[in-house]
């Protein structure tokens, strides 16, 4: 007898084609809601299972939720060496200062907020379609050996650590202070994409190139690897679908539209929700390793700004504990907006199609 659990409550029976309530879930809900005294008894009876959960909850509580408690510092007057609970409330003073009241801080905050958004937005525009294109191209290569060879090579950059990746970027673009421009800079100069002056100055020292460098290295790193999931969907299309379209006289574009697109649509929607949801979380490690004082204009994101204000950016330039409280406030604003985006994107996707992420 084949049964499929649709929701936690409803069981669909394929043989009789009927829906039925999961009686056990009703019991569980009943216990959770009405008989809370029985809860302890139920847990004790099954204590081994609950014990298995303890380490996981402990890890998440200590190192994911306790930091959220430290966020309270964004609403307090900071005092050195005093736990955040004992400090006095400042209300939204720090938020007001980074948003508008303190011009020097607020310009930095809004710049970082804009950069965070733009870096991921350009990622959505350029980085998001690339894996799909790569997967479509992979599908054209019928020789298995050649295709697997190419696939292995294109996944390779994903395996390099951020430090190695950024080091290669730094060295290939500008091989150091007072040296000749790196090999890639030379190539770009030769093609005329960048001027000689810019190449000599170092492309990573020029704010106008940072976003492009960030996106291109991102594509270089992820396009091959991210194409796997689309390729799996494309390769599952039966060849007869293409043949039928070809007999109807469909060219390549028409085949794309009517055969390929429908089959990758659900994957595409999931990936898109993911992207939109993470519009305000930029890989801070990569920015931190690639940016420098001369590119703050376009490179500084909220996380790296918070690192500097918080005095935890290596060569930190913290303005003390007040700046630390403002760093907390800045990131809290950013991450809350990000959370609203995730939930919003997911809700919309659930309304428009059947696909949703959470």
């Amino acid at each position: 007898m084949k049964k499929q659990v649709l929701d936690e409550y409803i069981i669909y029976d394929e043989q009789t084609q009927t829906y039925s309530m999961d009686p056990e879930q009703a019991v569980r809900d009943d216990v959770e809601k009405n008989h809370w005294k029985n809860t302890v008894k139920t847990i004790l009876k099954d204590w081994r299972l609950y014990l298995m959960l303890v380490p996981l909850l402990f890890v998440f509580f200590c190192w994911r939720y306790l930091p959220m408690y430290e966020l309270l510092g964004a609403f307090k007057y900071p005092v050195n060496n005093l736990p955040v609970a004992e400090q006095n409330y400042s209300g939204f003073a720090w938020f007001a200062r980074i948003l508008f009241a303190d011009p020097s801080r607020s310009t930095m905050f809004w710049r970082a907020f804009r950069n965070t958004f733009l870096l991921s937005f350009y990622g959505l525009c350029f980085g998001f379609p690339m894996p799909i294109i790569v997967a479509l191209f992979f599908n054209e290569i019928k020789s298995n050996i050649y295709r697997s060879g190419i696939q292995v090579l294109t996944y390779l950059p994903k395996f390099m650590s951020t430090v190695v990746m950024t080091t290669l970027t730094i060295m290939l673009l500008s091989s150091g202070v007072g040296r000749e421009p790196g090999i890639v800079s030379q190539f770009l100069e030769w093609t005329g994409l960048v001027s000689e002056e810019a190449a000599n100055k170092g492309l990573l020292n020029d704010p106008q190139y940072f976003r492009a460098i960030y996106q291109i290295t991102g594509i270089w790193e992820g396009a091959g690897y991210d194409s796997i999931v689309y390729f799996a969907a494309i390769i599952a299309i039966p060849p007869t679908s293409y043949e039928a379209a070809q007999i109807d006289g469909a060219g390549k574009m028409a085949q794309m539209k009517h055969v390929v697109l429908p089959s990758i649509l659900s994957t595409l929607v999931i990936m898109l929700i993911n992207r939109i949801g993470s519009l305000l979380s930029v890989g801070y490690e990569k920015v931190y390793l690639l940016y420098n004082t001369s590119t703050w204009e376009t490179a500084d994101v909220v996380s790296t700004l918070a690192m500097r204000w918080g005095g935890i950016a290596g060569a930190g330039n913290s303005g003390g504990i007040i700046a630390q409280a403002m760093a907390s406030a800045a990131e809290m604003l950013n991450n809350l907006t990000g959370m609203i985006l995730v939930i919003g994107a997911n809700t919309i996707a659930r309304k428009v199609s059947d696909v949703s992420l959470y």
Partner: protein
Amino acid sequence: MKRRLEISELIFKVLSYVFLTIFALACLYPLVYAFSSAISGETVVDANEVILLPKDIQFEAFRYVFNDNIFWTSYSNTLFVTFFGTLWALGVAILGGYALSKKRLLFRRGFNFFLVFTMWFSAGMVPQWINYKNTENVFNALAGGDLDNKWLIVIAMGMAAMNVILLRNAFEGVPSEIEEASIVDGATELQILTKVYIPMSQSTIATVALFFAISRWNGYYWAQQFTDQPEWPLQVYLRSNINAYLLGGTDEKFIIPDGYGEFSVNSFIYAMIICAIIPILIIYPFIQKYFAKGVNMGGVKE
């Protein structure tokens, strides 16, 4: 019946061969270039005359890296952190994922939300830093002295809700009849997990282990914040050299010690990069299929 390709199909085919070949070469090129530069002579490297193949070959840079004690200490630190970090995170995630996969678990939705929420919202850099600092103090107090901060990296950093959810989904896929049969046979909860569930979800566990291992191996920022020189992982040591010799973080010049022939500081850094990625290149063919599988499991359901 063989059909002639339409012109649009032909163009697309040619385009895909050309594009993918160029892309694949672009993925390979930096590594080849790094290796060539690592074994090329000082003047050639400094003048950026290496394009693809090494010129004026020397192995002094590699010899220097092989004899660099800090490099190998850092290497062993990274191996330590990767091994124990993966072991700890995987153990915790398997136990927790197993419990969460059970429908009979009370407050299951609440626990799931507890995990998933951390994917939506994180406290941010400064609160996380304060939290790790407090953790360091607690660990030191527990150890009754200055505990090696590698343990902080192993235990406190690197848990990811996504990985737990992948494991939970895999365990949910195991047919419940098998569990019922084991209960009838008198198996305890732990036996059911180790004898039934783990063998039946091997490939997911391998994938998740790989995700944990990669994140420990690659971790830079927090390791740099919380470790000092003898405890440095490889990534931190690598970056410290970049900062010192390439980005002008300090005024020290790279001085080749006695007993070594001439080589450029760039060759030294490229040689370190090659040494750092060789283990990955060696195991890459074996783990690649798990990596490919992991992406396809990415869809989350609640």
